[in-house]
Protein backbone atom coordinates (compact mmCIF):
# COMPACT_ATOMS: atom_id res chain seq x y z
CA UNK A 1 0.00 0.00 0.00
CA UNK A 2 2.68 2.50 0.98
CA UNK A 3 4.50 1.68 -2.28
CA UNK A 4 1.41 2.64 -4.24
CA UNK A 5 1.00 5.92 -2.34
CA UNK A 6 4.66 6.85 -2.80
CA UNK A 7 4.32 5.99 -6.47
CA UNK A 8 1.26 8.19 -6.83
CA UNK A 9 2.97 11.06 -4.99
CA UNK A 10 5.88 10.80 -7.41
CA UNK A 11 3.51 10.53 -10.38
CA UNK A 12 1.95 13.88 -9.54
CA UNK A 13 5.17 15.81 -10.03
CA UNK A 14 5.99 13.73 -13.11
CA UNK A 15 2.62 14.69 -14.57
CA UNK A 16 3.41 18.37 -14.17
CA UNK A 17 6.80 18.11 -15.83
CA UNK A 18 5.37 15.98 -18.66
CA UNK A 19 2.63 18.55 -19.25
CA UNK A 20 5.40 21.07 -19.83
CA UNK A 21 7.03 18.96 -22.51
CA UNK A 22 3.63 18.10 -23.94
CA UNK A 23 2.81 21.78 -24.48
CA UNK A 24 6.15 22.32 -26.18
CA UNK A 25 5.96 19.24 -28.37
CA UNK A 26 2.23 18.98 -28.93
CA UNK A 27 1.50 22.63 -29.69
CA UNK A 28 4.79 24.23 -30.70
CA UNK A 29 6.05 20.97 -32.32
CA UNK A 30 9.43 21.42 -30.72
CA UNK A 31 10.94 18.34 -29.12
CA UNK A 32 12.80 20.19 -26.38
CA UNK A 33 15.71 18.11 -25.11
CA UNK A 34 16.68 20.92 -22.74
CA UNK A 35 13.41 20.40 -20.91
CA UNK A 36 15.07 18.60 -17.99
CA UNK A 37 17.61 21.39 -17.60
CA UNK A 38 14.76 23.87 -17.30
CA UNK A 39 13.40 21.67 -14.55
CA UNK A 40 16.74 21.61 -12.75
CA UNK A 41 17.01 25.37 -13.19
CA UNK A 42 13.64 25.65 -11.44
CA UNK A 43 14.94 23.45 -8.62
CA UNK A 44 18.10 25.56 -8.26
CA UNK A 45 16.03 28.71 -8.32
CA UNK A 46 13.87 27.50 -5.48
CA UNK A 47 16.92 26.30 -3.54
CA UNK A 48 18.47 29.71 -3.90
CA UNK A 49 15.24 31.50 -3.05
CA UNK A 50 14.63 29.37 0.03
CA UNK A 51 18.22 29.68 1.27
CA UNK A 52 18.18 33.45 0.82
CA UNK A 53 14.72 34.35 2.11
CA UNK A 54 13.52 31.37 4.19
CA UNK A 55 10.10 31.90 2.67
CA UNK A 56 8.22 28.74 1.71
CA UNK A 57 9.48 27.15 -1.53
CA UNK A 58 5.89 27.36 -2.72
CA UNK A 59 6.17 31.16 -2.69
CA UNK A 60 9.23 30.91 -4.92
CA UNK A 61 6.88 29.73 -7.68
CA UNK A 62 5.55 33.28 -7.94
CA UNK A 63 9.04 34.37 -9.00
CA UNK A 64 10.26 31.30 -10.88
CA UNK A 65 7.23 30.71 -13.08
CA UNK A 66 7.21 34.21 -14.67
CA UNK A 67 11.00 34.12 -15.03
CA UNK A 68 10.93 30.73 -16.73
CA UNK A 69 8.09 31.91 -18.96
CA UNK A 70 10.11 34.92 -20.08
CA UNK A 71 13.29 32.87 -20.55
CA UNK A 72 11.50 30.26 -22.66
CA UNK A 73 9.76 32.92 -24.71
CA UNK A 74 13.18 34.39 -25.46
CA UNK A 75 14.61 30.95 -26.30
CA UNK A 76 11.76 30.36 -28.72
CA UNK A 77 12.16 33.75 -30.36
CA UNK A 78 15.94 33.68 -30.66
CA UNK A 79 16.80 30.02 -31.15
CA UNK A 80 13.70 28.23 -32.41
CA UNK A 81 11.98 30.76 -34.68
CA UNK A 82 14.79 30.73 -37.29
CA UNK A 83 14.54 26.93 -37.38
CA UNK A 84 10.77 27.07 -37.88
CA UNK A 85 11.18 29.64 -40.68
CA UNK A 86 13.68 27.62 -42.66
CA UNK A 87 12.22 24.16 -42.09
CA UNK A 88 10.72 22.79 -45.28
CA UNK A 89 8.91 19.99 -43.49
CA UNK A 90 7.77 18.87 -40.08
CA UNK A 91 10.44 16.17 -40.06
CA UNK A 92 13.23 18.63 -40.74
CA UNK A 93 12.01 20.92 -37.96
CA UNK A 94 11.98 18.00 -35.57
CA UNK A 95 15.56 17.00 -36.38
CA UNK A 96 16.78 20.61 -36.22
CA UNK A 97 15.03 21.37 -32.96
CA UNK A 98 16.28 18.18 -31.33
CA UNK A 99 19.87 19.07 -32.23
CA UNK A 100 19.48 22.71 -31.21
CA UNK A 101 17.86 21.99 -27.86
CA UNK A 102 20.34 19.17 -27.19
CA UNK A 103 23.08 21.77 -27.57
CA UNK A 104 21.10 24.17 -25.45
CA UNK A 105 20.96 21.60 -22.65
CA UNK A 106 24.78 21.69 -22.41
CA UNK A 107 24.72 25.47 -22.20
CA UNK A 108 22.24 25.16 -19.35
CA UNK A 109 24.33 22.57 -17.51
CA UNK A 110 27.42 24.73 -17.91
CA UNK A 111 25.57 27.80 -16.68
CA UNK A 112 24.21 26.00 -13.66
CA UNK A 113 27.64 24.56 -12.83
CA UNK A 114 29.17 28.02 -13.05
CA UNK A 115 26.47 29.56 -10.87
CA UNK A 116 25.93 26.90 -8.25
CA UNK A 117 28.90 24.53 -8.52
CA UNK A 118 28.81 20.79 -9.02
CA UNK A 119 27.67 19.71 -5.56
CA UNK A 120 24.54 17.83 -4.73
CA UNK A 121 22.13 20.26 -3.16
CA UNK A 122 19.12 19.84 -0.98
CA UNK A 123 17.36 21.76 1.70
CA UNK A 124 15.10 20.79 4.52
CA UNK A 125 11.52 21.97 4.36
CA UNK A 126 8.54 20.33 6.03
CA UNK A 127 10.75 17.32 6.69
CA UNK A 128 8.37 15.71 9.12
CA UNK A 129 6.05 12.79 8.73
CA UNK A 130 2.38 12.91 7.90
CA UNK A 131 0.27 9.83 8.42
CA UNK A 132 -1.89 8.50 5.59
CA UNK A 133 -3.79 5.28 6.34
CA UNK A 134 -1.59 4.75 9.38
CA UNK A 135 1.67 4.95 7.45
CA UNK A 136 4.14 7.83 7.71
CA UNK A 137 5.07 9.80 4.58
CA UNK A 138 7.23 12.87 4.18
CA UNK A 139 5.10 15.98 4.49
CA UNK A 140 7.36 17.58 1.87
CA UNK A 141 6.46 14.88 -0.66
CA UNK A 142 2.76 15.32 0.02
CA UNK A 143 3.10 19.11 -0.27
CA UNK A 144 4.89 18.81 -3.62
CA UNK A 145 2.22 16.40 -4.82
CA UNK A 146 -0.63 18.71 -3.87
CA UNK A 147 1.14 21.67 -5.45
CA UNK A 148 1.73 19.72 -8.68
CA UNK A 149 -1.85 18.49 -8.75
CA UNK A 150 -3.20 22.00 -8.27
CA UNK A 151 -1.04 23.33 -11.13
CA UNK A 152 -2.02 20.40 -13.38
CA UNK A 153 -5.70 20.97 -12.67
CA UNK A 154 -5.36 24.70 -13.27
CA UNK A 155 -3.59 24.13 -16.56
CA UNK A 156 -6.11 21.52 -17.65
CA UNK A 157 -9.04 23.80 -16.88
CA UNK A 158 -7.33 26.72 -18.64
CA UNK A 159 -6.76 24.59 -21.74
CA UNK A 160 -10.34 23.35 -21.85
CA UNK A 161 -12.43 26.26 -20.59
CA UNK A 162 -10.86 29.42 -21.97
CA UNK A 163 -10.66 30.80 -25.47
CA UNK A 164 -6.87 31.09 -25.31
CA UNK A 165 -6.57 27.48 -24.13
CA UNK A 166 -8.91 26.33 -26.88
CA UNK A 167 -6.76 28.16 -29.43
CA UNK A 168 -3.61 26.39 -28.17
CA UNK A 169 -5.31 23.01 -28.42
CA UNK A 170 -6.49 23.92 -31.90
CA UNK A 171 -2.90 24.53 -33.00
CA UNK A 172 -1.97 21.13 -31.57
CA UNK A 173 -4.76 19.44 -33.55
CA UNK A 174 -4.17 21.24 -36.87
CA UNK A 175 -1.87 24.22 -37.43
CA UNK A 176 -3.23 24.81 -40.94
CA UNK A 177 -6.85 24.87 -39.81
CA UNK A 178 -5.82 27.13 -36.90
CA UNK A 179 -4.58 29.72 -39.40
CA UNK A 180 -7.98 29.60 -41.12
CA UNK A 181 -9.74 30.70 -37.92
CA UNK A 182 -7.35 33.60 -37.50
CA UNK A 183 -5.16 32.04 -34.84
CA UNK A 184 -1.67 33.51 -35.10
CA UNK A 185 0.12 30.16 -35.17
CA UNK A 186 3.69 31.46 -34.67
CA UNK A 187 2.55 33.45 -31.65
CA UNK A 188 0.54 30.56 -30.24
CA UNK A 189 3.58 28.31 -30.64
CA UNK A 190 5.80 30.78 -28.80
CA UNK A 191 3.19 31.03 -26.05
CA UNK A 192 2.93 27.25 -25.75
CA UNK A 193 6.71 26.88 -25.64
CA UNK A 194 7.04 29.56 -22.97
CA UNK A 195 4.16 28.15 -20.95
CA UNK A 196 5.57 24.64 -21.25
CA UNK A 197 8.94 25.85 -19.97
CA UNK A 198 7.29 27.66 -17.06
CA UNK A 199 5.31 24.55 -16.13
CA UNK A 200 8.46 22.43 -16.27
CA UNK A 201 10.36 24.87 -14.07
CA UNK A 202 7.45 24.81 -11.61
CA UNK A 203 7.78 21.01 -11.59
CA UNK A 204 11.46 21.43 -10.73
CA UNK A 205 10.64 23.83 -7.91
CA UNK A 206 8.22 21.34 -6.40
CA UNK A 207 10.61 18.39 -6.86
CA UNK A 208 13.35 20.29 -5.07
CA UNK A 209 11.26 20.24 -1.90
CA UNK A 210 12.02 16.56 -1.38
CA UNK A 211 14.71 15.68 -3.91
CA UNK A 212 18.48 16.00 -3.79
CA UNK A 213 19.69 17.36 -7.10
CA UNK A 214 22.75 18.57 -8.96
CA UNK A 215 23.45 20.36 -12.22
CA UNK A 216 23.73 17.18 -14.28
CA UNK A 217 20.36 15.73 -13.29
CA UNK A 218 18.44 17.35 -16.14
CA UNK A 219 18.95 14.65 -18.73
CA UNK A 220 17.33 12.04 -16.49
CA UNK A 221 14.19 14.15 -16.27
CA UNK A 222 14.21 14.96 -19.98
CA UNK A 223 14.15 11.25 -20.68
CA UNK A 224 11.42 10.60 -18.14
CA UNK A 225 9.26 13.37 -19.59
CA UNK A 226 9.91 12.01 -23.06
CA UNK A 227 8.86 8.51 -22.01
CA UNK A 228 5.69 9.87 -20.39
CA UNK A 229 4.68 12.03 -23.34
CA UNK A 230 5.26 9.32 -25.93
CA UNK A 231 3.69 6.66 -23.73
CA UNK A 232 0.63 8.84 -23.18
CA UNK A 233 0.18 9.78 -26.81
CA UNK A 234 1.56 12.99 -28.17
CA UNK A 235 -1.71 14.76 -28.84
CA UNK A 236 -3.60 14.23 -25.61
CA UNK A 237 -2.78 15.78 -22.27
CA UNK A 238 -4.89 13.23 -20.38
CA UNK A 239 -2.64 10.48 -21.72
CA UNK A 240 0.40 12.22 -20.27
CA UNK A 241 -1.23 12.46 -16.84
CA UNK A 242 -2.14 8.76 -16.79
CA UNK A 243 1.30 7.80 -18.11
CA UNK A 244 2.99 9.94 -15.46
CA UNK A 245 1.23 8.02 -12.70
CA UNK A 246 2.05 4.70 -14.35
CA UNK A 247 5.71 5.68 -14.49
CA UNK A 248 5.70 6.91 -10.87
CA UNK A 249 4.14 3.64 -9.72
CA UNK A 250 6.42 1.45 -11.83
CA UNK A 251 9.55 3.22 -10.60
CA UNK A 252 8.51 2.99 -6.97
CA UNK A 253 7.52 -0.65 -7.24
CA UNK A 254 10.80 -1.63 -8.88
CA UNK A 255 12.85 0.51 -6.49
CA UNK A 256 11.24 -0.98 -3.38
CA UNK A 257 10.72 -4.58 -4.44
CA UNK A 258 13.58 -5.25 -6.84
CA UNK A 259 16.51 -2.85 -6.80
CA UNK A 260 16.66 0.97 -6.64
CA UNK A 261 19.35 0.90 -9.31
CA UNK A 262 16.89 -0.49 -11.82
CA UNK A 263 14.32 2.33 -11.74
CA UNK A 264 15.37 3.90 -15.04
CA UNK A 265 15.66 0.48 -16.64
CA UNK A 266 12.14 -0.30 -15.48
CA UNK A 267 10.88 2.92 -16.99
CA UNK A 268 12.30 1.98 -20.36
CA UNK A 269 11.08 -1.59 -20.26
CA UNK A 270 7.60 -0.23 -19.60
CA UNK A 271 8.05 2.28 -22.40
CA UNK A 272 9.09 -0.37 -24.89
CA UNK A 273 6.26 -2.71 -23.90
CA UNK A 274 3.64 0.02 -24.37
CA UNK A 275 5.12 1.06 -27.70
CA UNK A 276 5.06 -2.54 -28.89
CA UNK A 277 1.44 -3.04 -27.88
CA UNK A 278 0.04 0.40 -28.66
CA UNK A 279 2.57 2.40 -30.69
CA UNK A 280 0.41 5.52 -30.87
CA UNK A 281 0.44 5.83 -27.08
CA UNK A 282 -2.26 5.17 -24.48
CA UNK A 283 -4.59 7.93 -25.64
CA UNK A 284 -3.09 8.50 -29.07
CA UNK A 285 -4.90 7.70 -32.25
CA UNK A 286 -3.49 6.08 -35.31
CA UNK A 287 -3.12 8.72 -37.97
CA UNK A 288 -5.32 7.79 -40.88
Amino acid sequence: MDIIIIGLLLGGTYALMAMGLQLQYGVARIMNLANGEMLVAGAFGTFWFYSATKFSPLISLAVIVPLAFAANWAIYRVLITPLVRRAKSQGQLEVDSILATFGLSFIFVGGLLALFGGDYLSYSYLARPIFILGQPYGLNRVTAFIGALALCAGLYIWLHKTRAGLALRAVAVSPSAAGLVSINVPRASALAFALGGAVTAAGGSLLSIFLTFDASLGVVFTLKALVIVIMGGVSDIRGAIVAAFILGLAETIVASLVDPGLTLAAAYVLFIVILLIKPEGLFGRRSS
Partner: protein
Amino acid sequence: MLECKNIAVFYGRHRAVEDVSMQIAPGEIVVMLGSNGAGKSTFLRAIAGQKAKASGTVVMDGADISHRPSHEIVEAGIALVPEDRGIFADMTVQENLILGAHPRRARALEADNMARVLGLFPRLAERPKQLVRTMSGGERQMVALGRAMMSAPSILMLDEPSLGLSPLLTSELFRSLVKIKDTGVGIFLVEQNAKQSLAIADRGYLLDNGRIVGADSAAALSRDEKVRHAYLGAG
Protein backbone atom coordinates in the same frame (compact mmCIF):
# COMPACT_ATOMS: atom_id res chain seq x y z
CA MET B 1 -15.82 43.31 -52.44
CA LEU B 2 -12.82 41.10 -53.12
CA GLU B 3 -10.64 41.95 -56.10
CA CYS B 4 -7.67 39.88 -57.24
CA LYS B 5 -5.40 41.31 -59.90
CA ASN B 6 -2.78 39.44 -61.90
CA ILE B 7 -2.25 36.67 -59.38
CA ALA B 8 0.62 34.34 -60.24
CA VAL B 9 1.98 31.41 -58.26
CA PHE B 10 5.07 29.44 -59.15
CA TYR B 11 6.35 26.17 -57.74
CA GLY B 12 10.03 26.50 -58.45
CA ARG B 13 10.01 27.14 -62.19
CA HIS B 14 6.68 25.46 -62.73
CA ARG B 15 3.83 27.90 -63.23
CA ALA B 16 0.69 26.84 -61.36
CA VAL B 17 -1.34 30.03 -61.78
CA GLU B 18 -0.57 32.97 -64.02
CA ASP B 19 -2.17 36.37 -64.48
CA VAL B 20 -5.48 35.46 -62.90
CA SER B 21 -7.79 38.39 -62.14
CA MET B 22 -11.26 38.09 -60.69
CA GLN B 23 -13.63 39.86 -58.39
CA ILE B 24 -16.56 38.97 -56.23
CA ALA B 25 -19.12 41.12 -54.43
CA PRO B 26 -21.17 40.35 -51.32
CA GLY B 27 -24.41 38.55 -52.04
CA GLU B 28 -23.33 36.76 -55.20
CA ILE B 29 -22.13 33.25 -55.92
CA VAL B 30 -19.21 33.03 -58.30
CA VAL B 31 -17.93 29.68 -59.48
CA MET B 32 -14.53 28.90 -60.93
CA LEU B 33 -14.56 25.81 -63.09
CA GLY B 34 -11.51 23.90 -64.13
CA SER B 35 -10.25 20.37 -64.41
CA ASN B 36 -7.97 18.68 -61.93
CA GLY B 37 -4.61 20.44 -61.83
CA ALA B 38 -5.86 23.60 -63.52
CA GLY B 39 -4.59 25.60 -60.53
CA LYS B 40 -7.89 26.25 -58.74
CA SER B 41 -6.77 25.19 -55.28
CA THR B 42 -3.45 27.00 -55.65
CA PHE B 43 -5.30 30.19 -56.53
CA LEU B 44 -7.53 29.92 -53.46
CA ARG B 45 -4.59 29.25 -51.18
CA ALA B 46 -2.80 32.26 -52.60
CA ILE B 47 -5.74 34.52 -51.72
CA ALA B 48 -6.04 32.97 -48.25
CA GLY B 49 -2.39 33.70 -47.49
CA GLN B 50 -1.26 30.08 -47.38
CA LYS B 51 1.12 30.44 -50.32
CA ALA B 52 3.87 32.90 -49.56
CA LYS B 53 5.35 32.96 -53.04
CA ALA B 54 2.44 34.52 -54.89
CA SER B 55 2.58 37.76 -56.85
CA GLY B 56 -0.19 40.14 -57.83
CA THR B 57 -2.52 42.13 -55.63
CA VAL B 58 -5.47 41.12 -53.49
CA VAL B 59 -7.72 43.98 -52.43
CA MET B 60 -10.54 43.53 -49.93
CA ASP B 61 -13.00 46.40 -49.48
CA GLY B 62 -10.37 48.81 -50.74
CA ALA B 63 -7.55 47.56 -48.48
CA ASP B 64 -4.53 45.84 -49.98
CA ILE B 65 -4.16 42.48 -48.25
CA SER B 66 -1.62 40.87 -50.60
CA HIS B 67 1.11 38.87 -48.84
CA ARG B 68 -0.62 38.99 -45.46
CA PRO B 69 -0.45 35.87 -43.27
CA SER B 70 -3.58 33.72 -43.26
CA HIS B 71 -4.79 34.84 -39.83
CA GLU B 72 -4.94 38.47 -41.01
CA ILE B 73 -6.80 37.52 -44.19
CA VAL B 74 -9.52 36.02 -42.00
CA GLU B 75 -9.73 39.25 -40.01
CA ALA B 76 -10.22 41.10 -43.31
CA GLY B 77 -13.41 39.09 -43.83
CA ILE B 78 -12.35 36.22 -46.09
CA ALA B 79 -13.01 32.68 -44.88
CA LEU B 80 -11.70 29.61 -46.67
CA VAL B 81 -12.97 26.06 -46.50
CA PRO B 82 -10.07 24.15 -48.08
CA GLU B 83 -10.32 20.86 -49.89
CA ASP B 84 -9.44 18.94 -46.70
CA ARG B 85 -12.26 20.92 -44.96
CA GLY B 86 -9.88 22.67 -42.54
CA ILE B 87 -11.67 21.37 -39.48
CA PHE B 88 -10.33 20.20 -36.13
CA ALA B 89 -11.08 16.49 -36.36
CA ASP B 90 -9.99 15.66 -32.81
CA MET B 91 -12.26 18.27 -31.28
CA THR B 92 -16.01 18.45 -30.77
CA VAL B 93 -18.55 20.13 -33.03
CA GLN B 94 -19.05 22.86 -30.46
CA GLU B 95 -15.32 23.48 -30.09
CA ASN B 96 -14.96 23.73 -33.87
CA LEU B 97 -17.72 26.32 -34.07
CA ILE B 98 -16.37 28.34 -31.14
CA LEU B 99 -12.93 28.30 -32.77
CA GLY B 100 -14.56 29.63 -35.92
CA ALA B 101 -15.48 32.73 -33.93
CA HIS B 102 -11.86 33.25 -32.86
CA PRO B 103 -11.23 36.21 -35.20
CA ARG B 104 -11.66 39.51 -33.39
CA ARG B 105 -14.19 40.64 -35.97
CA ALA B 106 -16.42 37.70 -35.08
CA ARG B 107 -16.33 37.66 -31.29
CA ALA B 108 -19.08 40.15 -30.58
CA LEU B 109 -21.32 38.33 -33.05
CA GLU B 110 -20.55 34.85 -31.70
CA ALA B 111 -24.00 34.17 -30.21
CA ASP B 112 -25.86 35.47 -33.28
CA ASN B 113 -23.69 33.51 -35.69
CA MET B 114 -23.99 30.36 -33.59
CA ALA B 115 -27.78 30.60 -33.74
CA ARG B 116 -27.61 31.19 -37.49
CA VAL B 117 -25.29 28.21 -38.10
CA LEU B 118 -27.32 25.87 -35.92
CA GLY B 119 -30.48 27.05 -37.70
CA LEU B 120 -28.86 26.26 -41.03
CA PHE B 121 -27.56 22.87 -39.89
CA PRO B 122 -29.91 21.49 -37.21
CA ARG B 123 -27.91 18.28 -37.17
CA LEU B 124 -25.00 20.13 -35.59
CA ALA B 125 -27.31 21.43 -32.86
CA GLU B 126 -28.27 17.84 -32.02
CA ARG B 127 -24.71 16.74 -31.22
CA PRO B 128 -22.51 19.53 -29.95
CA LYS B 129 -20.27 17.12 -28.02
CA GLN B 130 -19.53 14.69 -30.86
CA LEU B 131 -15.94 14.46 -32.05
CA VAL B 132 -15.83 15.67 -35.66
CA ARG B 133 -13.52 12.77 -36.53
CA THR B 134 -16.39 10.34 -35.96
CA MET B 135 -18.83 12.11 -38.29
CA SER B 136 -19.84 11.31 -41.86
CA GLY B 137 -18.46 13.22 -44.85
CA GLY B 138 -21.62 15.28 -45.24
CA GLU B 139 -21.69 16.18 -41.56
CA ARG B 140 -18.03 17.16 -41.62
CA GLN B 141 -18.76 19.48 -44.51
CA MET B 142 -21.50 21.07 -42.38
CA VAL B 143 -18.99 21.57 -39.57
CA ALA B 144 -16.54 23.10 -42.04
CA LEU B 145 -19.16 25.49 -43.44
CA GLY B 146 -20.41 26.30 -39.96
CA ARG B 147 -16.88 26.96 -38.75
CA ALA B 148 -16.30 29.33 -41.67
CA MET B 149 -19.62 31.11 -41.10
CA MET B 150 -18.74 31.62 -37.42
CA SER B 151 -15.90 33.90 -38.47
CA ALA B 152 -18.47 36.36 -39.87
CA PRO B 153 -17.00 36.48 -43.39
CA SER B 154 -17.99 38.92 -46.12
CA ILE B 155 -16.54 36.49 -48.65
CA LEU B 156 -16.66 32.73 -48.22
CA MET B 157 -14.36 30.65 -50.41
CA LEU B 158 -14.91 26.92 -50.85
CA ASP B 159 -12.53 24.50 -52.49
CA GLU B 160 -14.45 21.61 -54.07
CA PRO B 161 -17.03 21.29 -51.30
CA SER B 162 -18.85 18.56 -53.25
CA LEU B 163 -15.77 16.32 -53.28
CA GLY B 164 -16.60 12.97 -51.71
CA LEU B 165 -20.28 13.79 -51.25
CA SER B 166 -23.15 11.92 -52.89
CA PRO B 167 -25.24 13.86 -55.45
CA LEU B 168 -28.05 14.10 -52.87
CA LEU B 169 -25.75 15.53 -50.18
CA THR B 170 -24.21 17.85 -52.75
CA SER B 171 -27.55 19.40 -53.67
CA GLU B 172 -28.36 19.72 -49.96
CA LEU B 173 -25.03 21.48 -49.46
CA PHE B 174 -25.56 23.78 -52.43
CA ARG B 175 -29.00 24.71 -51.12
CA SER B 176 -27.38 25.84 -47.87
CA LEU B 177 -24.89 27.88 -49.89
CA VAL B 178 -27.79 29.75 -51.48
CA LYS B 179 -29.20 30.44 -48.01
CA ILE B 180 -25.82 31.77 -46.91
CA LYS B 181 -25.64 33.96 -50.00
CA ASP B 182 -29.07 35.37 -49.18
CA THR B 183 -27.68 36.69 -45.88
CA GLY B 184 -25.37 38.93 -47.92
CA VAL B 185 -22.22 36.82 -48.01
CA GLY B 186 -20.31 36.57 -51.28
CA ILE B 187 -19.46 32.97 -52.12
CA PHE B 188 -16.52 31.97 -54.27
CA LEU B 189 -16.88 28.37 -55.26
CA VAL B 190 -14.15 26.36 -56.92
CA GLU B 191 -15.58 23.21 -58.44
CA GLN B 192 -15.27 20.40 -60.91
CA ASN B 193 -18.98 19.72 -60.55
CA ALA B 194 -20.03 22.20 -63.23
CA LYS B 195 -23.67 21.28 -63.59
CA GLN B 196 -24.75 21.72 -59.97
CA SER B 197 -22.50 24.68 -59.25
CA LEU B 198 -23.58 26.65 -62.34
CA ALA B 199 -27.18 26.03 -61.29
CA ILE B 200 -26.72 28.10 -58.12
CA ALA B 201 -24.07 30.55 -59.34
CA ASP B 202 -24.54 34.08 -60.66
CA ARG B 203 -21.30 34.24 -62.62
CA GLY B 204 -18.48 31.91 -63.52
CA TYR B 205 -14.84 31.83 -64.58
CA LEU B 206 -13.14 29.09 -66.54
CA LEU B 207 -9.61 28.23 -65.50
CA ASP B 208 -7.39 26.11 -67.71
CA ASN B 209 -3.71 25.41 -67.26
CA GLY B 210 -3.35 28.23 -64.73
CA ARG B 211 -5.04 30.90 -66.85
CA ILE B 212 -8.55 32.31 -67.12
CA VAL B 213 -9.95 31.23 -70.48
CA GLY B 214 -13.49 32.45 -70.09
CA ALA B 215 -15.81 34.52 -67.88
CA ASP B 216 -19.54 35.02 -68.20
CA SER B 217 -22.86 34.80 -66.41
CA ALA B 218 -23.70 31.33 -65.10
CA ALA B 219 -26.67 31.07 -67.45
CA ALA B 220 -24.54 31.90 -70.50
CA LEU B 221 -21.82 29.47 -69.40
CA SER B 222 -24.22 26.58 -69.04
CA ARG B 223 -25.44 27.23 -72.61
CA ASP B 224 -21.93 27.62 -74.02
CA GLU B 225 -20.99 24.75 -76.34
CA LYS B 226 -17.35 24.60 -75.22
CA VAL B 227 -18.31 24.55 -71.54
CA ARG B 228 -20.92 21.90 -72.15
CA HIS B 229 -18.36 19.85 -73.96
CA ALA B 230 -15.52 20.28 -71.47
CA TYR B 231 -17.28 20.36 -68.10
CA LEU B 232 -20.83 19.14 -68.48
CA GLY B 233 -20.10 15.90 -70.23
CA ALA B 234 -22.32 16.75 -73.18
CA GLY B 235 -21.12 15.32 -76.46
